[in-house]
């Protein structure tokens, strides 16, 4: 601009270019360097719209992502009922091991001194089904020879931990209700908890 002005007035004395006094640089505000600041605002308009735009995009993506994650957990599952009714407590005399629900549910109902327990017939070694040997009063796994006492404690063979117990309780009609969605583990000290046995 100043050059054109000088060109139109060639006769004038070579004027000193008039410069405004150097403006005092503003100090850093909120960590932003001075050249990112306009005179009166923390953010320039461009900064504001840029951050708003990215915020909207990332917010929309995050919302969609969370919604998709929830979408992948359906509310209703079409799976077999994990609970079953196992008759009345009086059907199981003290000290007996019932194999009545082995074929259908893979569960023994054992009448222990403290009450009835629902013992899972899944070997804790590799998942075979042990057999109840009433003569020796033990559960014996045919696959690799793991042996368990009547209350499910492993004492021989490769099984690393006791058999698992399912939740056992009473239904409204007085029948025994076994829930295979909740298990009680001996190694976690859960066998004494209410639900792990049914006092008779």
């Amino acid at each position, binding site marked *: 601009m100043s050059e054109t002005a000088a060109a139109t007035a060639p006769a004038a004395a070579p004027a000193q270019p008039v410069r405004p006094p150097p403006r005092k640089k503003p100090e850093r505000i909120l960590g932003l360097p001075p050249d990112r600041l306009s005179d009166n605002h923390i953010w320039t308009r461009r900064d504001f719209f840029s951050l708003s735009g990215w915020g909207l995009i990332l917010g929309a993506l995050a919302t969609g992502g969370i919604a998709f*994650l929830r979408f*992948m*957990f*359906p509310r209703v*599952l*079409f*799976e*077999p009922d994990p609970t079953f009714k196992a008759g009345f407590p009086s059907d199981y005399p003290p000290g007996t091991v019932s194999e009545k629900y082995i074929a259908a549910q893979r569960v023994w109902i054992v009448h222990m001194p403290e009450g009835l327990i629902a013992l899972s017939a899944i070997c804790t070694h590799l998942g075979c089904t042990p057999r109840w040997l009433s003569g020796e009063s033990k559960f014996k796994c045919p696959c690799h020879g793991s042996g368990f006492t009547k209350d499910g404690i492993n004492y021989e063979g490769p099984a690393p931990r006791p058999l698992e117990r399912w939740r056992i309780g009473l239904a409204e009609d007085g029948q025994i209700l076994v829930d295979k*969605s909740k298990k009680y583990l001996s190694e976690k000290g859960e066998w004494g908890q209410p639900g792990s046995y049914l006092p008779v």
Partner: protein
Amino acid sequence: MADEPKPQAPGEESKLDQVKREVAQSQVWKSAFRHGYADTGRNRQLMILGNIWLHLHPPKMRRHAVRVKFTWCMGGITFLLFLVTLVTGVVLMFYYRPTGEYAYLDLKYLMHDVPFGAIVRNMHRWAAHAMVITVMLHMFRVFMTGSYKPPREFNWVIGVLLITFTLLLSFTGYLLPWDQLAIWAITVASNMARATPLLGHEGPFAAQLGIGSRYDARSLMLAGTIVAPATLLRFYVLHCIVVPIVAALLMIVHFWRIRKDGGISGPL
């Protein structure tokens, strides 16, 4: 053409050459192929660079780069096997229905009744097995030749992701026959996800976070608490859509980075 057997007098043009010239000069042809076949170094580079299918390739190869002794061609063979599974997989999709009622029946149908069904299914299966082996050999070769070192370290990371997705393709494909082997294999494998820290209901911190078997990493994978038809559909979508697309995108980056990082194998 240069390799025309009979030399022709100048000005004389056979009928075939005339047709070729007219086709090559038509607008339709030129809109697709921007460069002629002039066999010069520059033109050959332009041919590669200007072609959407070939531009991932380097326009020039070093002599040592194509020595089979050095590369074993394992990356190329892996890609070929991926293409085999891609084509045969799409063909299988014309018959296979990923539902509890039909999946196993459709497999039997493909194996025993559909013409060429057995060979297509077996090509898919064996190419998938072979791909796992060749991708491991490729990784071994890259490691032994030191081809993971800078500036190729980023491409090594892409390669690690690719071997992971190759295994995920095998894992998700394992369930699709919907026979006893498939169901119990996925049951055993998904049981490992129970113990995922923070995400599995039998893993560390599950009790503190209140994670149950209904909402954890395993139920996300299985669409429930057991391997069920819902699991089959989920694995089918992952196997046919999600994992192949991610793997293909990673492959594009992988091949492109080979060129950007100084070419295949060899010293820089």
